[in-house]
């Protein structure tokens, strides 16, 4: 990788690696990559001070395509990876990237607890309402009547998981929805999310053109949220529970103080300090 040029302003290109994505042509995740690099360039964060960590899925392949530090972990545990990294190295910018299967199915518990902990992470979920990587099974956000998978012959019949409501209910302090087709708009939301102090959650509708070709229609359905962001969780919840699922923008931004690990009262001690406790 190239050392970071320190003198000139960084451009989105500087945040891209030279590795060719494995994604299908037309996959929404290409744009999400563009939005992330654009947001990082906007914030002029040195690439080496940024880490993108993820789980497993098409979407979770994203870290290697950014010229930042990255971790492509195991399925469903990206938030835990990111939490450990951020608590241990609070000065870094940590972006956690995931998919709807990775984040809401197997990773659901960490989502709840990450929102609750309110650690200063930015959590980006590329929601395509399907398991892309494993070739097209329903995910928690899949519509109940989507019947293209042999695993759920007539559709799952299940109420879809509502990530934004869950985030809010579990205490996320920044909640936004974006659409991958709007690269710059999404970049702006990501930049805001990164700057937010505390846990920020950006759900990005990112079509899977291979297993959900119907999602090409999303382009026509999305629209900016008609109202200003609120800092009242109950109001935000009401709004999100009743909206059409396609309005984008910051839907909630609160002021809860971010997680801060306990700090020593005095100077940091050496290990020998602890011996007194055991000495007879």
């Amino acid at each position: 990788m190239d050392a970071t040029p320190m003198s000139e302003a960084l451009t989105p290109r500087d945040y891209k690696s030279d590795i060719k994505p494995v994604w299908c042509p037309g996959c929404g995740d290409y744009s999400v990559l563009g939005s992330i690099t654009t947001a990082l360039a906007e914030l002029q964060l040195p690439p080496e001070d940024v880490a993108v960590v993820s789980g497993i899925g098409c979407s979770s392949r994203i870290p290697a395509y950014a010229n930042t530090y990255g971790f492509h972990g195991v399925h469903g545990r990206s938030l835990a990876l990111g939490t450990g990294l951020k608590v241990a190295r609070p000065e870094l910018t940590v972006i956690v990237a995931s998919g709807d299967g990775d984040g809401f199915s197997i990773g659901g518990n960490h989502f709840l607890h990450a929102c609750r902990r309110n650690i200063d992470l930015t959590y980006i979920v590329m929601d395509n309402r399907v398991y892309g990587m494993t070739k097209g099974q329903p995910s928690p956000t899949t519509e109940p009547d989507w019947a293209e998978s042999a695993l759920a012959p007539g559709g799952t019949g299940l109420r879809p998981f509502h990530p934004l409501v869950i985030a809010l209910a579990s205490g996320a302090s920044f909640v936004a929805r974006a659409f991958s087709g709007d690269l710059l708009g999404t970049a702006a939301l990501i930049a805001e999310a990164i700057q937010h102090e505390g846990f920020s959650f950006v759900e990005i509708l990112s079509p899977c053109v291979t297993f959900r070709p119907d999602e090409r229609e999303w382009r026509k359905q999305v629209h900016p949220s008609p109202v200003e962001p609120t800092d009242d969780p109950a109001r935000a919840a009401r709004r999100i529970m009743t909206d059409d699922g396609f309005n984008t923008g910051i839907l909630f931004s609160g002021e809860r103080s971010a997680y801060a690990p306990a700090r020593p009262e005095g100077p940091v001690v050496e290990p020998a300090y602890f011996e007194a406790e055991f000495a007879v």
Partner: protein
Amino acid sequence: MTTSATERTSVVLAINGSGGAGAITAGSMLLKAAARAGLYGLLTRAVGPQIRGGEAVAILRLATAPVECAADRCDLQIAIDWMNADRFAAELNLGPESLVIGDAAAEEVPEAIAESGARIEALPIAELAKSVKGGRPNMVALGIAAAAIGLPAEALEAEIVETLSSKGEAAIEASKAALAAGMEAASGIDFAAKLTPPDKKEKRWIISGNEAAGLGAIRGGVRFVAAYPITPATEILEWMSPALVKAGGSLVQAEDELASINMIIGASYGGVPALTATSGPGLALMLESVGLAIASEVPVVIVDVMRGGPSTGIPTKSEQSDLNMALNGCHGDAPHIVVAPTSVADCLFTTQWAVHLAEAMQVPTIVLSDQFLGQAKAVIDRPADVAFIANRKVETAPAEGYRRYAITADGVSPMTVPGIAGGQYTADGLEHNPRGTPSTAAGDHASQLDKRADKLTKFDYGQHWAEIDGDGPLAVITWGSSTAPAREAIEIARAQGIDVKLVALRLLAPSRPDAFAEALKGVERALVVEQTHSGQFLRHLRAEYDLPGEITHLCRPGPLNFRAQDVLAAIKEAK
């Protein structure tokens, strides 16, 4: 007690009582007082099935030299009351030479105790306690115990002052009076055991294996812990949590073990040595991600304080039966390190060493402790300072085209951490090429598998891979908490003229075939000692090493730890 007391080198005392009777408190105070007086000792405890407030027993082995395991039998049991006291019979192993002192006013002696053949005496424990305002029976019992082994009243009184300092003067005086009453009452009873403390030279500590593991971790450089509570590992976390803050680190209580392991992988990827502690069920949950740390070459330390298995098993009792899982629980070819402390004190060294090994080789390291080692409190000589600390090969000035997983002579590739410009890479659990890019090529797979295996086998573990002691045609091969009874049995055997060699493995994986062969040179027979049901350790030895032709196997599951006599009997059989 009578003056006919004979000199002994080790005495076992037990104080038991129903919930709230304070048996454990009395036991702890006795241990500390004995340590102050210059004795060594070991305190274990057992409780009934109730979550809280059930019957409990404190078992103390006090001795003139360091002791690391339960003794063969209990010399003196002091029963504050008889509440379910028979539950502990197997643990105490009373015999005709034992003395049991019960409360004069109590009901009949429980059958299991009566049947043991122990001499049974009665003292008015409750009455004596009542005779003192605010007096408690456990302090009377403490007095009886102190008198039995000839501890001076002052040693106990000092301990009372320290323990009860927050309770006020009246409580202290009441306890002292109850103590005195107990000592006085005991004088009429014949108990033939007296311990003369050695000339105290070394600094002494009282520490549990779990505390020792925590301290070892911090000495080794651990500054991040994420964990989820579980018996019998929780004390490691409870000790480390405030300590880490003082040392400039932090502890996160995770939502589950899947989170803990990934949090420590994240922290360590960030360059901060990291650890989690758990027990069997928790480690089982972590295995998938242990594989991630292996494949992505991120060092982490995982302490498994083993308990009875399988499944939820027997959470409060010891067993060595997580060995299989610790060695072989990951999917794929997943080389990593497994070490095990051989004593309570060694929990410190071994955990510290584990941090060092993990960091030096960029590999997950599992420390197999167990409930016995973790929860027993021992009086030990202050452990030596050792040089093992986290010393990761960090690439601070990566050249253009930095390759995180470069093939190197020793298999260890210099690693960057976030913040180092030009060192950006993506750690990956997918098979990858030297740069870290996913690859399905046979060549990449083979060379990365080679490197991850080689770095462990090429490392110089020095003499620490095993504790080897003595010589003889028979070797006792063992590990972990079975080491202490083996060691003690070997000493007795030697005194009886039987030469036996001890080989206690501290490094369980990778295996050291050459060192092992060297250690077994001249050995004709082996006695393998382990606390499992299915013989996990012997199977591991068979798989990895060439063993002498004749093998005897002392293999027994928990909940009871081996005693020296068990091993001695097996030695004699194997001889």
